[in-house]
C-alpha cells in the first residue's frame, strides 16, 4: 500500500492538515501536497480508468507528464474536467472526482471491453469497423463510441465560470523558461550581462529535480544553492521571477506565451484565476529539464507501476511512498537513486532488475553495498493484472518472457532513460538530433529556431540540451545564459564555474521492449500511450499495414494524441515503429511539437473578455435615451441600433407598423449617427473621388449633395451614400453604417499604395456628429418651430445642405431623403446629440413626433424601391443588376470597377436584375427565397431564376412588398413566378416595378 512516511517531505507542512474529498470520500493531506501526493498518502493508488479498455490506472508520474491521473475538479460553476492530480496543489475543501468509469471507479462495466474485445480494439479499429453499413454510423456506432469513450465530462452549458482571467503584456531581453538549477544558472549568466531577464517556473517551488536527486554545488546541497541563487537573482533590478507560471508556447519573432496560475492553489483568494503573459523577448532560454521514459513490459499500466524518478519525488518532496515493497526495473544508473532513497526512507527494495547485461556503475555498487539485491541482464516479464501491483514475474532481458521467478511487490519503479523536453525548442522550428549515447532526441544547436534576422532566438539549457549529469547541466546552463545575453545584444559575461560533486554514471542501454523478444501475448499488454490505450502491438500492426510515416502512425493508432501529447509515449512509440520498419530511429523521426506545452485554460485565452467587456458595444450619443424608451436592439456590426421602439404591450410588428404609418403621416425621428462620414480634402480630392465613385463627384457644386455608388476593382457594388461638397477642395462622403471603417480603409489603401502622388487627405468624422433624420410631412414645421436657419424649400432645396443654427444648436442640415418623405438630416456635435434629440422630441409633440427604428427605415426605403447595401447586394451584385446605369458615368475615362464591368460575365444580358415582387395574395415573401423555373440542373435540383433580396409587410400599402433579382426581370413585368418556401408552401409573386409608393417623388420634394 501507499502511505505517508514518518519523515521526509521537504515541500509539506506537517503541522497543518487539509481536508479534501475524492469521489466524495473525505481524506487528509498537508499544505504543500499535490492532489497526487495526498491521494497516495491516503492509499488511493487507483485514480481513473483508461480511455478505450477502461483498465484501472494509477499515478505514473509526479509532474505535468502524468497521463493517468486526470480528475474533475470542483463543482457547479467552478467544475473543470481533465485536471492533472500531479499539477494540482492541494487546498482545503478540494473536491475531485475520477473520470471515465461507470458505474464506479472500483467496479467498471467497461472493463469487459478489454476482457472480451481487446483483441478487436486494435490500431485503426475505428477506421476498419465503423465504415459499413453506412446508416449504422449515425444511429449505432457514434452513440456507442460517445458513451463508452471519452475523458471528463464537459461543464454544464447553462453555468458560467465563476472565475475571472486576464492578459498581461510583458517585454524582456531574455526569458528563461524553467526554474530548476539549470534555469537559475542560465538566468544568472544572462542577467550578469545586463539584460532584462524574466524567469518562469511552472511549479510553486524553484529548483526542479536537483534537490531530490542529490549532489552538491559549490559545496552546498542543491536546496541551499537554489535558495542562495534565488536571493541573488531577487536582488537584481533587471530580473523578474514568476513561479506557478509555465512557458506555454514559443512563436515567431520572440513571441512567447506564459500561463500563470494565480488562485488554483487557493480558490478563496480574490482576483483573476489565470493570467496569460503575452511576452515579446529577444532571446528565450528553455531550461525545461528532461522527462523519464517508461519501460514497455507486460502490465506496465497496472496501478503501482511508476516512473522511478517520480517515485523518489513522492518520497523526498511529500514524504509518501507508493508501496512497501518495490521492484526497480531500469536500463540506466539513475534509477538506482530511487532504490537508495526509498531504502533510506524505510521502504523495502525487493530487487533491482538492470536490463544491461553488464549492469550499472558506482550507483549500482552503492546499492549492492546497501544490501539491495541487484540482477543484471534481467527484466520484468509481466506485472500481474489487477487494480494494484501484487506480483512481478522476472525474466531474461534477452529472452521472450519466460518467467524465471515471481516476486511479491506492491509497486514497481521503472526507468527507460531520459528524454530532454524539446517542445519549446521545437515550436518555432528548432530541429533535433539523435543522441546514440543517451538514446534520445536532443536539440541540434546548429539548427535553432531563427528570428527575423536569421539568427537563433531560442537556446536550450541543462537537461533540455541533452546532458543529464549535474556538472554538465550547470555548465551548459551557464553557457546558454551567456549566449542568450549576447544574442540579446549585451556583452557576454562568463560566470565563475561552479564546482559540482555527484555520482558518476555508466552508459545507459536503450531498451524499447522488455524483454527484447517479447511474444505477442506480452506485447499486447505493453502500453506505450497510457491515456489513449496504445500498446506495442498496435504500433507494430500499423507498421505491418504499411504505415511508414510517424505522423500517419500517430493518427492511425492515436499514439501521442491525448491531452499529455505523448510526453511519455513519443520516443518509445517511434522506437517500436523504427524497429518494426527495420529502420533507424533518426530516420523515422518525431511527430511535430505544437503549443501549448501543457493544456492551458480557455479562460486564460479569453482573458478579461467576458460579461460587460466580452465585446465592445458601440453606442451613439442617444443610446441611453433609446434604451429608456423601449428600444428593441439590433446589432449592426459592433453598434446597437433600435430595431423599433416598443410601447406598452405592443408586439415588435405592431410597433414597426405604427412607426411606418406615423412617419409617412406625421413626423419620425431616426438616429442616423452610425452612418459613416468621411471628409476628403485636398487639391486632388475631386479627381480621387471620381475614381472612387462610379459617377462624377468633382463637378458637384458647393452646398449640393449627390448620391453615389462605389465599386470594388472587380466591379461589384461595395457601398453607397450621399456626398456633399463642403468647399473648394473638400467633400464629405456618407457611407453605410457598416462601411464607415471599411471605406475609410479602402480610400487610405488606394491613396497610400496606388495613388500616393495624389494630394488628398481623408479623415473619419463618423463619431464627431450625432446625425438625426427628421422625416415626414411635419419635418419642416418642427425645425421652423425650433427656429434658426431658413429650412424652406427655396432656401434649402432637395439634395442641398447648409450650415446654421437650429434651436440654438450649431447644425449642418442636409435635405436628403431615404424614405421618400420630406426629410432633413441634421448633424450636431456628438456631445450635444442627446440635447438636440430631446429638443426635437419636445418641439415635435404637437406634430405627432415618434422615433423610428431600423426596420421602419428599411420598409420606408423598400416602399420607394431604394436599394440597401447588404440586402440587394451581397458581393456578387453590380450596379447594372440594380438598374443603376444612370449612376455609371460614361464621361469619365476610368473609375474603380469600370473595366471589370466590360468582362463578358458582367456584361451578360441574362444577369438577374432588380424588380419589385408582389405576392398574389398579399402575403409576405420569405426572405432569401429562390424562384424556380423550368427543368432541373445536373444535380437534379430545380433550376432557379431569381431570389428575394428584401421583403417586408408595408402597413401603408397593407400588403407584403418585396424586391428581388430575377433573370430578365425588367422584361417580364406582370409575370407571376413561384418561390417555394422552407415552410412547405409555395409563394406566387407578380413581377412589378420596384417603386411601390409615390412613384413620381412628389412627397419628398415639397
Amino acid at each position, binding site marked *: 500500500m501507499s502511505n505517508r512516511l514518518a519523515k521526509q517531505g521537504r515541500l509539506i507542512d506537517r503541522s497543518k492538515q487539509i481536508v479534501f474529498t475524492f469521489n466524495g470520500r473525505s481524506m487528509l493531506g498537508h499544505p504543500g501536497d499535490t492532489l497526487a501526493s495526498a491521494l497516495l498518502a491516503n492509499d488511493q493508488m487507483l485514480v481513473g480508468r483508461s480511455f478505450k479498455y477502461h483498465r484501472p490506472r494509477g499515478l505514473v508520474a509526479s509532474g505535468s507528464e502524468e497521463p493517468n491521473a486526470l480528475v474533475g475538479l470542483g463543482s457547479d460553476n467552478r467544475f473543470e474536467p481533465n485536471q492533472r492530480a500531479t499539477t494540482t496543489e492541494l487546498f482545503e475543501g478540494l473536491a475531485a472526482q475520477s473520470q471515465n468509469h461507470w458505474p464506479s471507479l472500483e467496479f467498471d462495466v467497461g472493463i469487459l471491453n478489454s476482457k472480451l474485445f481487446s483483441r478487436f480494439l486494435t490500431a485503426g479499429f475505428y477506421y476498419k469497423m465503423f465504415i459499413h453499413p453506412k446508416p449504422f454510423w449515425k444511429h449505432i456506432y457514434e452513440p456507442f463510441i460517445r458513451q463508452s469513450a471519452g475523458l471528463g465530462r464537459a461543464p454544464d452549458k447553462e453555468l458560467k465560470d465563476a472565475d*475571472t482571467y*486576464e*492578459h*498581461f*503584456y*510583458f*517585454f524582456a531581453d531574455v526569458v528563461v523558461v524553467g526554474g530548476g538549477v539549470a534555469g537559475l544558472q542560465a538566468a544568472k549568466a544572462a542577467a550578469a550581462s545586463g539584460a*532584462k531577464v524574466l524567469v518562469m517556473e511552472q511549479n510553486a517551488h524553484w529548483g526542479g529535480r536537483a534537490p531530490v536527486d542529490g549532489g552538491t554545488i559549490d559545496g552546498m546541497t542543491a536546496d541551499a544553492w537554489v535558495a542562495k541563487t534565488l536571493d541573488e537573482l531577487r536582488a537584481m533590478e533587471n530580473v*523578474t521571477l514568476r513561479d506557478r507560471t509555465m512557458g506555454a508556447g514559443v512563436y515567431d519573432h520572440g513571441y512567447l506565451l506564459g500561463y500563470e496560475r494565480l488562485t488554483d492553489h487557493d480558490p478563496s*483568494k*480574490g*482576483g*483573476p484565476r489565470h*493570467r496569460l503573459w*503575452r511576452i*515579446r523577448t529577444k532571446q528565450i532560454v528553455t531550461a525545461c529539464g528532461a522527462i523519464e521514459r517508461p519501460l514497455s513490459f507486460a502490465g506496465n499500466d497496472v496501478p503501482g507501476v511508476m516512473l522511478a524518478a517520480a517515485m523518489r519525488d513522492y518520497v523526498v518532496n511529500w514524504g509518501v511512498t507508493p508501496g512497501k515493497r518495490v521492484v526497480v526495473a531500469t536500463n540506466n544508473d539513475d534509477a538506482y537513486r530511487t532504490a537508495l532513497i526509498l531504502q533510506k526512507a524505510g521502504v523495502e527494495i525487493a530487487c533491482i532488475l538492470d536490463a544491461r547485461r553488464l549492469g550499472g556503475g558506482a550507483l549500482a555498487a552503492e546499492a549492492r553495498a546497501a544490501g539491495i539485491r541487484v540482477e543484471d541482464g534481467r527484466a520484468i516479464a509481466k506485472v500481474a493484472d489487477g487494480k494494484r501491483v501484487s506480483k512481478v514475474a522476472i525474466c531474461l532481458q534477452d529472452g521472450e518472457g519466460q518467467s524465471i521467478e515471481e516476486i511479491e511487490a506492491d509497486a514497481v519503479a521503472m526507468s527507460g532513460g531520459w528524454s530532454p523536453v524539446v517542445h519549446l525548442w521545437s515550436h518555432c522550428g528548432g530541429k533535433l538530433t539523435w543522441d546514440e549515447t543517451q538514446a534520445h532526441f536532443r536539440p541540434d544547436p546548429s539548427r535553432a529556431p531563427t528570428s527575423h534576422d536569421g539568427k537563433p532566438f531560442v537556446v536550450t539549457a541543462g537537461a533540455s540540451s541533452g546532458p543529464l549529469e549535474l556538472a554538465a547541466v550547470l555548465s551548459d546552463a551557464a553557457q546558454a545564459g551567456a549566449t542568450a545575453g549576447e544574442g540579446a545584444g549585451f556583452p557576454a559575461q562568463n560566470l565563475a564555474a561552479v564546482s559540482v560533486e555527484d555520482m558518476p554514471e555508466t552508459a545507459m542501454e536503450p531498451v524499447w521492449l522488455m524483454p527484447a523478444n517479447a511474444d505477442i501475448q506480452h506485447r499486447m499488454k505493453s502500453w506505450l500511450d497510457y491515456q489513449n490505450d496504445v500498446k506495442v502491438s498496435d504500433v507494430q500492426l500499423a507498421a505491418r499495414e504499411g504505415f511508414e510515416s510517424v505522423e500517419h502512425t500517430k493518427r492511425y493508432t492515436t499514439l501521442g494524441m491525448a491531452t499529455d501529447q505523448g510526453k511519455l509515449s513519443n520516443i518509445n512509440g517511434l522506437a517500436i515503429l523504427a524497429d518494426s520498419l527495420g529502420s533507424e530511429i533518426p530516420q523515422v523521426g518525431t511527430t511535430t511539437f505544437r503549443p501549448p506545452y501543457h493544456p492551458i485554460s480557455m479562460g486564460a485565452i479569453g*482573458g*478579461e*473578455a467576458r460579461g*460587460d*467587456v466580452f*465585446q*465592445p*458595444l*458601440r*453606442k*451613439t*450619443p442617444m443610446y441611453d435615451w433609446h434604451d429608456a424608451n423601449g428600444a428593441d436592439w439590433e446589432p449592426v456590426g*459592433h*453598434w446597437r441600433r433600435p430595431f423599433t421602439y416598443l410601447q406598452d404591450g405592443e408586439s415588435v410588428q405592431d410597433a414597426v407598423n405604427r412607426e411606418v404609418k406615423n412617419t409617412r403621416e406625421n413626423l419620425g425621428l431616426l438616429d442616423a449617427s452610425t452612418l459613416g462620414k468621411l*471628409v476628403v*480634402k*485636398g*487639391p486632388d480630392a475631386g479627381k480621387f473621388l471620381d475614381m472612387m465613385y462610379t459617377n462624377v463627384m468633382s463637378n458637384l457644386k458647393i452646398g449640393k449633395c449627390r448620391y453615389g455608388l462605389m465599386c470594388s476593382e472587380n466591379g461589384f457594388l461595395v457601398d453607397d451614400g450621399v456626398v456633399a461638397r463642403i468647399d473648394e477642395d473638400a467633400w464629405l462622403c456618407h457611407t453605410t453604417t457598416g462601411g464607415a471603417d471599411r471605406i475609410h480603409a479602402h480610400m487610405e489603401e488606394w491613396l497610400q499604395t496606388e495613388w500616393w502622388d495624389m*494630394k488628398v*487627405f481623408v*479623415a473619419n*468624422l*463618423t*463619431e*464627431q*456628429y450625432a446625425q438625426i433624420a427628421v422625416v415626414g410631412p411635419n419635418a419642416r414645421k418642427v425645425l421652423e418651430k425650433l427656429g434658426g436657419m431658413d429650412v424652406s424649400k427655396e432656401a434649402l432645396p432637395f439634395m442641398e445642405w447648409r450650415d446654421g443654427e437650429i434651436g*440654438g*444648436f450649431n447644425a449642418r442640415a442636409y435635405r436628403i431623403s431615404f424614405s421618400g418623405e420630406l426629410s432633413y438630416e441634421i448633424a450636431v*456635435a*456628438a*456631445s*450635444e446629440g*442627446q*440635447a*438636440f434629440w430631446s429638443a426635437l422630441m419636445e418641439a415635435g409633440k404637437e406634430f405627432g413626433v415618434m422615433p423610428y427604428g431600423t426596420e421602419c427605415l428599411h420598409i420606408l426605403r423598400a416602399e420607394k424601391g431604394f436599394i440597401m447595401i447588404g440586402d440587394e447586394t451581397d458581393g456578387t451584385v453590380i450596379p447594372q443588376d440594380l438598374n443603376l446605369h444612370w449612376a455609371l458615368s460614361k464621361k469619365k475615362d476610368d473609375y474603380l470597377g469600370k473595366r471589370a464591368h466590360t468582362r463578358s460575365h458582367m456584361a451578360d444580358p441574362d444577369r438577374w436584375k432588380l424588380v419589385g415582387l408582389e405576392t398574389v395574395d398579399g402575403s409576405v415573401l420569405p426572405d432569401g427565397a429562390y424562384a424556380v423555373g423550368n427543368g432541373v440542373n445536373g444535380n437534379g435540383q430545380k433550376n432557379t431564376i431569381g431570389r428575394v433580396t428584401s421583403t417586408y409587410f408595408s402597413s401603408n400599402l397593407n400588403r407584403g412588398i418585396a424586391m428581388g433579382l430575377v433573370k430578365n426581370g425588367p422584361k417580364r413585368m406582370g409575370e407571376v413566378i413561384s418561390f417555394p418556401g422552407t415552410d412547405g408552401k409555395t409563394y406566387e409573386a407578380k413581377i412589378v416595378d420596384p417603386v411601390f409608393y409615390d412613384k413620381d417623388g412628389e412627397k419628398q420634394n415639397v
Partner: protein
Amino acid sequence: MSNAVSVLNGASFDGLAEVKDAGLVGMITLRGDLSSKALAKAVLNVTDCTIPDVRKVAAVNGNTVAWMSPDELLIVTDYQNVDAMVAKLSSALAGEHALVVNVSDARSMLTLSGSGTREVLAKVAPVDFSAEQFQPGDFRRTRLAQVAGAFWLGEAEQMHIICFRSVGQYVFDLLKVAAHSDAVVGVYT
C-alpha cells in the same frame, strides 16, 4: 455649449489605479507634411508646441501635440478653444496641402493615475510600460483590448487615454476590470 456632455459624464473608479473621465476635451486632427516648415510654424504659433518626435507628445501651456503617423498630428486643447484654434490653423495653413478638423466630439478621454497605472494599462495594451522604456512624453497609438486607442504619459505618472466616443463606456469598463484591486501583477511596483 451648455448642452455638451462627455460620454462618461464624470465617471470614476478607484482600484489598482484611478480611472477617471477627463470630461470634454478639445481635439484637432491635423494632417499634412510634418517636415514642412510652414506646418511647423503654424503649429508653433497656434499651440506653442513644436512638432513631436515619432511616438512622442509635445506639451506647452495646456496644449498637447501628439505624433499620430508620419502625416498626422493630434492637437489636444480646451474644448472651448477648438473652433478658434481650427480657424487659426486653417488660415495659417491656407495654400498648404493640409487638413485641419475638429474631432473633439468623436472621442472619449480618460485618465489613469496612481501606482498601478503602468500595470493596469499593460493588461490591455501591447506596449512595454517599464519605466526605462515608457517615459513622460511618450505616446502610443495602439489598441486597448479589442478597440483602437492612444495614450501618453503626462506628469506625475498620469496616463491620458483617448478612444472613440462610441466605445468610451467599453474602455472605462475594461480599465475597471484591469484595475480590480485583487489583480495586482507586481512587476512595475
